[in-house]
């Protein structure tokens, strides 16, 4: 007879890259401990590994966390935080508004409403970039799994290595060429033939990549100035 299962509430979150809603359970106290350990290690790799591990533990559907774009990981993690710890987070902000030629410097304590989390999406953004009439590239979104070359800080050829790390495939009028089937030399030659305009078009992919933001207005009680707070980036959660 199978052992009884401990039931936890089930929640859902919409993930943009998958264009579907996935089910998850809240993380537990034992998983919260892992987050605390990662936070105290102050090691970026440790923090990212722990986030991936917790999402993987809590997600009730078969998704590949390793390749999940950062913006979806952030969205997932904020929702996990909402349903596991709470909907608000107590933060402090030093008011930098200048009053009578001096900064206010008042420390404002406020509760950030995590439910305001949303995707910021650029209308011009496209994964598929046409370089000529027939030739183009399809990019893939950066995930939390940082490429080894990025970790080793070995970029020397004008950022082409970064671009090739996130290149999914190249296409022409006849077929597609997956990056994993292209040699480093061929790829390097392909990039060398690109014009500055074409490289700019590819770099635009990274600039306009979707992101997850938390926005909130706070009013300084001392100088009455209205501050529009914009929080972005998963590492903000570990500060």
């Amino acid at each position, binding site marked *: 007879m199978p052992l009884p299962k401990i039931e936890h509430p089930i929640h859902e979150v919409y993930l943009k890259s998958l264009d579907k809603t996935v089910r998850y359970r809240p993380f537990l*106290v034992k998983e919260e401990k892992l987050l605390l350990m990662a936070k105290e290690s102050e090691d970026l790799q440790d923090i990212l590994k722990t986030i991936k591990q917790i999402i993987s533990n809590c997600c009730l559907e078969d998704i590949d966390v390793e390749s999940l774009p950062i913006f979806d990981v952030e969205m997932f993690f904020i929702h996990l935080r909402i349903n596991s710890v709470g909907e608000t987070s107590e933060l402090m902000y030093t008011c930098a508004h200048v009053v009578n030629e001096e900064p206010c410097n008042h420390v404002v304590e406020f509760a950030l409403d995590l439910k305001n989390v949303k995707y910021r999406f650029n209308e011009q953004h496209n994964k598929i970039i046409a370089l000529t009439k027939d030739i183009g590239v399809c990019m893939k979104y950066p995930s939390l799994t940082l490429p080894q070359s990025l970790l080793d800080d070995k970029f020397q050829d004008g950022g082409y290595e970064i671009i090739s790390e996130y290149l999914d495939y190249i296409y022409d009028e006849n077929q597609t060429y997956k990056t994993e089937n292209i040699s480093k030399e061929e790829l390097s030659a392909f990039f060398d033939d690109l014009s500055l305009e074409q490289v700019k078009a590819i770099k635009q992919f990274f600039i306009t990549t979707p992101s997850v933001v938390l926005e909130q207005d706070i009013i300084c009680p001392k100088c009455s100035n209205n501050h529009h707070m914009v929080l972005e980036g998963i590492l903000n959660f570990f500060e």
Partner: protein
Amino acid sequence: MTLGYDNLKNYYSTNFTLMQHHKYSLTELDNLIPWEKQIYVKLLENHVKEQNERLKLAQAQRRR
């Protein structure tokens, strides 16, 4: 910003207090959702406060 505790030290000392003085087991605590644990800790805190006040009142009455 993420978590209910500010550091690992507080996490362990809260768990220790709950186990040592209030009969919780580590497995029970580990399998709670963090907000549930916060509620139990808050309720326990209120309970201990009430008990202490009751005790103080009883001691004051005995002295009279």
